[in-house]
C-alpha cells in the first residue's frame, strides 16, 4: 500500500469515526430457507400422495413465488446448485456451502420417495408458470419429443462450464430471476415474460424443455418408492385427465398392432443398442473437436487470446482487460501455462460430456421404438410434475366424494 501522505497528527482531539460494515445473518437465513423447502415439499407430498387434492399445491405455489421468488429473490436455487456441486467435485479450492448442497440434494431425495414434488409448486419457476396456466393446448408429439432432449444437452453444457470453473450458464441465462428482482438483463426478462406468456396456453415450457434439474428429478421420479396416482379407483378410460394434464404426462391406452413375440422385441431393441456406442463415440468426437471453441467461455482463455492478438498487432486503444494484465505485470508465459491446463480440462470434459449427450440421444431414439401396450391411462412419472390437476377431472374421484 502506498503511503504518499503521512498520517496526520491531530491537535484538536479529533477522533477517527468508526466505520460500519454490515454482515448479513446468512446462517439464519439459510436455515430458514432449508426449513421452508422441507416444509413445502412435505406438504405437497402429503397432498398429492395421501390426499389426492390440488389446493395445497396451489397454496404452495403462491407461498413459493412470494417467499423464494419475490422475497429471497432467487439465489441459491436447486437448479443452479447443480453447478456448485459439480464445481466442488472438480475444484479443491472451492468449498461448497452446506445449504447449497442441501438445496441440491433434498428435492432429489424427495423425488426418489414421492416423485417430483419439488417441481409441483415448491420451485418458484414452476410455481410461477403453473399459476398463470389457463388453457391447455397440447403440442404435437414430435415437437415435445425433440424438445425434451434439450434439458439434458443444457445440463451437459452447464456441467462442462461449471467443472472447468468458467461460468455458471444456468444462472447466467436464468429467465425468471429478473422478474423476481424486478430488474436485470432486459433480454432475459423478455425471455421470461415470453415463457410465462406461452405457459398460459401450454403447461410449463421452461420445466419441460429447458430445466435440467427437472430432467434429473424425472429420472428419480420414475423409480420412486411411492408414486402419484390419478385415482384410487379403477380407470374408466374417459380421457379427461389426459386432456387436463398441462405437461402431457398422461399416456393414453395403446394397442400395439405389431404382433411380435417378446423375444423378438428384445432382440430388436438389442439391435438398436448396437448403434448406441456409435452415437456415443460420434458425440464425444464432435464435442472434443469443438472443445477449443468452448474454452473461450473461460475468462483466462479470453484474456490470453486478447494478449496474443495485441502482441501480434499492438492496438492503439487497449481494452480494460489488457490494461489490467499489463498493469499487474503478469508474465505471458505464466498465463499460457494456466491456459494450457484449462484447455486440457476442456478437451477431457468435452469428450466425456459429448459421450453423455450421445447416450441421451440414443436412449431417446431407442425409447421411441419401444411400444408398450397400455390398457388404461397411465402417468409418465418422468414427466409428471405432480401439479394434481388430474385429480378433480377424474370422474371416479367425484363418485368417491358423492358416496362419502
Amino acid at each position, binding site marked *: 500500500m502506498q503511503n504518499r501522505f503521512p498520517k496526520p497528527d491531530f491537535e484538536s482531539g*479529533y477522533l477517527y469515526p468508526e466505520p460500519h460494515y454490515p454482515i448479513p445473518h446468512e446462517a439464519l437465513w439459510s436455515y430458514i430457507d432449508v426449513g421452508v423447502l422441507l416444509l413445502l415439499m412435505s406438504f405437497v407430498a402429503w397432498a398429492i400422495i395421501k390426499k389426492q387434492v390440488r389446493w395445497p399445491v396451489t397454496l404452495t405455489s403462491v407461498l413459493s413465488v412470494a417467499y423464494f421468488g419475490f422475497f429471497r429473490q432467487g439465489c441459491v436455487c436447486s437448479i443452479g446448485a447443480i453447478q456448485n456441486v459439480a464445481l466442488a467435485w472438480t475444484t479443491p479450492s472451492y468449498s461448497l456451502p452446506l445449504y447449497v448442497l442441501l438445496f441440491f440434494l433434498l428435492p432429489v431425495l424427495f423425488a426418489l420417495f414421492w416423485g417430483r414434488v419439488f417441481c409441483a409448486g415448491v420451485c418458484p419457476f414452476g410455481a410461477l408458470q403453473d399459476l398463470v396456466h389457463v388453457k391447455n393446448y397440447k403440442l404435437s408429439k414430435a415437437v415435445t419429443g425433440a424438445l425434451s432432449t434439450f434439458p439434458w444437452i443444457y445440463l451437459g453444457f452447464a456441467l462442462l462450464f461449471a467443472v472447468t470453473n468458467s461460468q455458471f450458464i444456468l444462472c447466467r441465462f436464468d429467465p425468471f430471476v429478473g422478474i423476481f428482482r424486478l430488474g436485470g438483463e432486459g433480454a432475459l426478462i423478455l425471455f421470461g415474460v415470453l415463457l410465462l406468456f406461452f405457459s398460459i396456453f401450454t403447461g410449463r415450457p421452461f420445466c419441460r424443455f429447458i430445466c435440467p434439474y427437472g430432467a434429473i428429478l424425472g429420472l428419480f421420479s420414475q423409480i420412486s418408492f411411492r408414486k402419484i396416482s390419478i385415482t384410487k379407483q379403477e380407470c374408466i378410460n374417459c380421457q379427461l385427465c389426459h386432456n387436463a394434464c398441462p405437461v402431457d404426462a398422461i399416456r393414453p391406452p395403446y394397442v400395439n398392432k405389431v404382433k411380435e413375440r417378446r423375444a423378438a422385441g428384445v432382440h430388436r431393441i438389442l439391435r438398436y443398442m448396437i448403434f448406441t456406442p456409435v452415437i456415443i463415440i460420434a458425440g464425444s468426437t464432435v464435442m472434443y473437436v469443438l472443445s477449443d471453441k468452448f474454452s473461450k467461455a473461460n475468462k483466462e482463455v479470453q484474456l490470453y487470446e486478447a494478449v496474443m492478438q495485441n502482441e501480434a498487432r499492438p492496438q492503439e486503444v487497449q481494452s480494460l482487460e489488457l490494461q489490467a494484465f499489463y498493469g499487474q505485470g503478469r508474465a505471458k508465459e505464466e498465463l499460457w501455462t494456466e491456459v494450457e491446463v484449462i484447455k486440457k480440462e476442456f478437451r477431457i470434459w468435452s469428450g466425456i460430456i459429448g459421450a453423455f449427450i450421445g447416450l441421451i440421444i440414443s436412449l431417446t431414439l431407442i425409447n421411441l421404438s419401444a411400444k408398450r401396450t397400455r390398457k388404461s391411462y397411465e402417468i409418465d412419472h418422468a414427466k409428471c410434475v405432480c401439479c394434481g390437476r388430474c385429480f378433480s377431472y377424474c370422474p371416479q374421484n367425484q363418485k368417491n366424494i358423492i358416496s362419502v
Partner: protein
Amino acid sequence: MRSYHQKPTNPLERRKFLINGARWLAGGIVLALSGFSYRKSTAKGSLHFWQIDPSLCTFCGRCQTDCVLSVSAVKCVHAVKVCGYCDLCGGYYRANVKELNTAAENLTCPTGAIQRKYVEDPYFEYTIREELCNGCGKCAKGCNSFGNGSLYLQIKQDLCKKCNECRIARACPSNAIRRVPISKVYDLKE
C-alpha cells in the same frame, strides 16, 4: 436352464425386480454423492459471498454498470486510518482543477456522495454517503493515483443479492472479484 423353461418368469415380476434394483441403486448413488460432497463442504469456510480484492481492482467502472441491481451493490469505502486528510484530495477533486471549491465541475464524484468536513488546519475529513454512491470508482481511481489509496471499492453485503453467477465478477477485467467465506466478507485496508 431347465427350471427357467419350466417356470417362465413373469415379465411384470421381472420389471418390478428391475425397478426395485434401480431404486436402491439410485438411493445408494445419492447417499454416496452426498457423503462425498459433504466432505467437500465446511460450513465456516464455505465460499458463498463475493468480494473485491482492493489490491487487484483497477477502478474500471464496470461495477457501476454491470451489477444486476439498478444501483450497484458496490460502494466506495473509506479507510480513515490510511487517509492523509489532505486539502487537495485526489479522490475529491478532479485532476487539474483550477479552484479548490465545491462546484460540481471540480469534483470527481458524479453523484455528490463524498462529503468533506474541516477538522483543523490543514486537514479535512472525508465521508461517503452510501445512499448516493453508485460504485463507479472514479474517486478510488483518483485517490489511488495521487493519494494513499484510502478510498476503494467493496461489495456491501447487506445490498448484495449473492447471485450464484456474479455479473460484475464476470465483467471484472482483472479478476478482482472472488468468492469469499463469511469470515472474510470484507477485504478492508485498515
